[in-house]
C-alpha cells in the first residue's frame, strides 16, 4: 500500500502542534492535534494485510437494447475501509464512487444504450483505502467485459410471402393441390385420392343413374396444399454509419445513445426473422460483408437462438472484396436484404437475385441523418451521396425489388406488401 502525501502532511502537522503545545505549556493548543492522532491510532489497529481484488462480470447473458447491467465484485480484506471506484465505458461519462469495504460484496453497474452488437463495456479503475485513508493501494483495473447487446424484436403480423411455396407442410396455402383446408375443386375420383376426400353429396347429385338407381363415377373434393415459406435474411455489414454524418469518416466517436445503420439492420433482421419463425416458416441468415457459411434456413426456437447469436456478432470487418456472384440461396426463397444502399454492391446483388426469380425485399436501414456539424463542402458532398442513393433505390424499384424503409410504419408497409399479388414473379 502507498502512503498518501496529504495524509502524511496532516499527521506531521498534528504531531508538530502537539509538540509545540506541550513544549509551550499550552494544553489548549496541544489538544487540537488529539483527534488526528486518535484517528491514526484507531486505523493502525485495524489495518489490512492486503488490498483486495475487484472482478467484473455481466449480470445476465442476454442483454437487450435499453439498459445493460454488470456487477463489480469486491473481495477485500477486513481492514480495508473503503474502495474508490471509477467506472468508465467508451462513449459514456465516467462515474466515481466511494463504497464501504470491510466485507465481500457486489456493486451493480448499469448504462443506457441504443446500440446493439458486441461492445466492450464497464472498465473499472479502483483502489482500496485503509488506515484512515492514509494508505491506499496502487490503482488497478478490472474489465472491460465484452457484452452482447441483442436487438429487441418488434412484433410484426402480416408478412409477405415468396412467389412459390416449395415446402410440403406449413401454415400458408400454396397453389399446389394437396393436403390443406381451402377448396381447390371437385374432381372425378382418381387413383391416389383418399377415400375420405370423396364428396358424397356431389357424387349423389351428379353420378346416380336415375333409370337404374346405381351410382356411377365418384367425385372427390381437392384442396390447396399448405406449405411453409423459405426466407433468407441478408444483412449488409459493410456499412455502420450513425445519425451524425460528421462521424461517418471516423475521428468522431459514434454516440452510444444513437442508433447506427447496423443497429437498424440488426433490429429489422431480428423482427422479420421472429415474425416468420412464429408463422412456422424456415428462416436463414447471411452476411453480405463476410465470406462465411450462412445460417441455413430452418424453423423453430433453436433457429431463433442461432439467428440471434449470429446477428449480434455481425460487424464491419475491413473492406471486403467485390463479390463476383451473389450468395447462393435456396430455390424459391424470399430474400430480405437489409442495407444502407450507399454503394452499388448491395443493389447489384439484389438485382441479380431478382433476376434469378426470387422475391426480393430491400430494407433501407439508413437512419435519419443529422447535418448539424457539417461545413458547406461536406453538406454538398452529403447531398450528392444521398442523391445517388435515391437514384439507386429508384432503379432497384424498377427492376421489381420491393423497397421498405425501416421505421415505425414498417409494419404497415410489410402488411401492404403481403397483400400485393405478383403472380409468377414480375421481372
Amino acid at each position, binding site marked *: *500500500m*502507498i*502512503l*498518501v*502525501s*496529504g*495524509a502524511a*502532511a*496532516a*499527521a506531521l*502537522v*498534528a*504531531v508538530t*502542534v*502537539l*509538540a*509545540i*503545545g*506541550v513544549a*509551550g*505549556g*499550552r*494544553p*489548549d*493548543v496541544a*489538544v*487540537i492535534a488529539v*483527534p*488526528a492522532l*486518535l*484517528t491514526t491510532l*484507531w486505523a*493502525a489497529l485495524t489495518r489490512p494485510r492486503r488490498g483486495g481484488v475487484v472482478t467484473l462480470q455481466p449480470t445476465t447473458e442476454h442483454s437487450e437494447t435499453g439498459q445493460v447491467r454488470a456487477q463489480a465484485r469486491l473481495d477485500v480484506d477486513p481492514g480495508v475501509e*473503503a474502495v*474508490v*471506484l471509477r*467506472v*468508465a465505458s467508451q*462513449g*459514456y*461519462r465516467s*462515474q*466515481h*464512487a*466511494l*463504497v*464501504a469495504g470491510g466485507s465481500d460484496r457486489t*456493486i451493480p*453497474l*448499469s*448504462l*443506457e444504450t441504443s446500440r446493439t452488437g458486441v461492445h466492450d463495456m*464497464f472498465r473499472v479503475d479502483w*483502489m482500496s*483505502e485503509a488506515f484512515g*485513508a492514509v*494508505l491506499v493501494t496502487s490503482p488497478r483495473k478490472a474489465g472491460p467485459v465484452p457484452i452482447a447487446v441483442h436487438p429487441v424484436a418488434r412484433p410484426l403480423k402480416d408478412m409477405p410471402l415468396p412467389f412459390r411455396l416449395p415446402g410440403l407442410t406449413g401454415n400458408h396455402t400454396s397453389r399446389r393441390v394437396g393436403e390443406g383446408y381451402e377448396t381447390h375443386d371437385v374432381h372425378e375420383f382418381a387413383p391416389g385420392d383418399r377415400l375420405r376426400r370423396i364428396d358424397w353429396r356431389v357424387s349423389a347429385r351428379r353420378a346416380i343413374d336415375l333409370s337404374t338407381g346405381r351410382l356411377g363415377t365418384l367425385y372427390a373434393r381437392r384442396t390447396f396444399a399448405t406449405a411453409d415459406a423459405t426466407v433468407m435474411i441478408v444483412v449488409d455489414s459493410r456499412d455502420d454509419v450513425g445519425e451524425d454524418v460528421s462521424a461517418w469518416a471516423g475521428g468522431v466517436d459514434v*454516440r452510444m*445513445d444513437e442508433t447506427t445503420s447496423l443497429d437498424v439492420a440488426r433490429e429489422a433482421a431480428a423482427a422479420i426473422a421472429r415474425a416468420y419463425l412464429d408463422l412456422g416458416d424456415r428462416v436463414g441468415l447471411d452476411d453480405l460483408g463476410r465470406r462465411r457459411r450462412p445460417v441455413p434456413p430452418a424453423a423453430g426456437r433453436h433457429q431463433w437462438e442461432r439467428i440471434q447469436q449470429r446477428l449480434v456478432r455481425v460487424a464491419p470487418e475491413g473492406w471486403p472484396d467485390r463479390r463476383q456472384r451473389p450468395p447462393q440461396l435456396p430455390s424459391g426463397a424470399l430474400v430480405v436484404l437489409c442495407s444502407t444502399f450507399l454503394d452499388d454492391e448491395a443493389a447489384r446483388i439484389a438485382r441479380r437475385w431478382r433476376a434469378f426469380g426470387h422475391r426480393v425485399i430491400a430494407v433501407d436501414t439508413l437512419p435519419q441523418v443529422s447535418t448539424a*456539424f457539417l461545413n458547406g463542402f461536406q453538406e454538398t458532398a452529403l447531398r450528392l451521396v444521398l442523391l445517388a442513393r435515391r437514384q439507386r433505390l429508384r432503379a432497384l424499384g424498377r427492376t421489381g425489388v420491393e423497397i421498405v424503409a425501416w421505421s415505425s410504419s414498417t409494419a404497415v408497409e410489410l402488411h401492404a406488401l403481403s397483400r400485393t399479388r405478383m403472380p409468377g414473379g414480375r421481372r
Partner: protein
Amino acid sequence: MNLANLFNPAPQRRQRPPVSIDLEHSVPAWLLRGASAAVIVLGLGPVVGDLVVPLLVAVAIVIVPHPGVVAALTLVGAGYVWNQPPDLLVCAVFVLVLHAVATLARLTAPLPPTGRVESRLVLRALAGFAVIQLLAQAMVVLAFAAMAGMPTFSWFAVLVLAGIAAAVVAGVRWVGRHTQ
C-alpha cells in the same frame, strides 16, 4: 467568408450519457463538500468573530478537499489558539470543527464533485467521528482542568518531547516498512 457565421453560435454536441453505479443509498460528494464548508463557516465564524477567514478557508476546502488543506487549516487554527488567552469554548469548537472537516475531507478527497459516497460509509465515518470526538472533548476538558495545576518543571516538557520524538521515529519506521 460568411460573416453571418460570426453571430450564429456553433452547434454544441450533447453531453455523453453517464455510466451508473447503482448504490442503494448514497450521498453526492458535492453535498459533503458543502457540509464541510458549512461546518467551517458556522462553527468558526462566531468563535473567531470574523467571517472573511472562515469563508476563504471554506472556499478552499470546497474546491480542494485534500488532507493537505486540512493540515494547513490545523496549523492556522493552532496559531490562532496560541495567540489567544486559553478559552475552553474556543478550544472545544476548534477541535470539533477541525476533526469534522478532516473526516469529511477523507470521504471526498478521492472523488470529483459529481462522485457519490455510499451512505453506509458516511455513517461508519460519523460513528468513528463521534467516538473520537468524545475522547478528544474529554481531553480538552481535562487539559483545561489541569491548567491551574500544570507542572512547570522544565523536565516535564523534556520528557513529553522525548516521548513524542520516540513516537515519531516509530511512526516513520513503520511508514518506511509499509510504503513502496
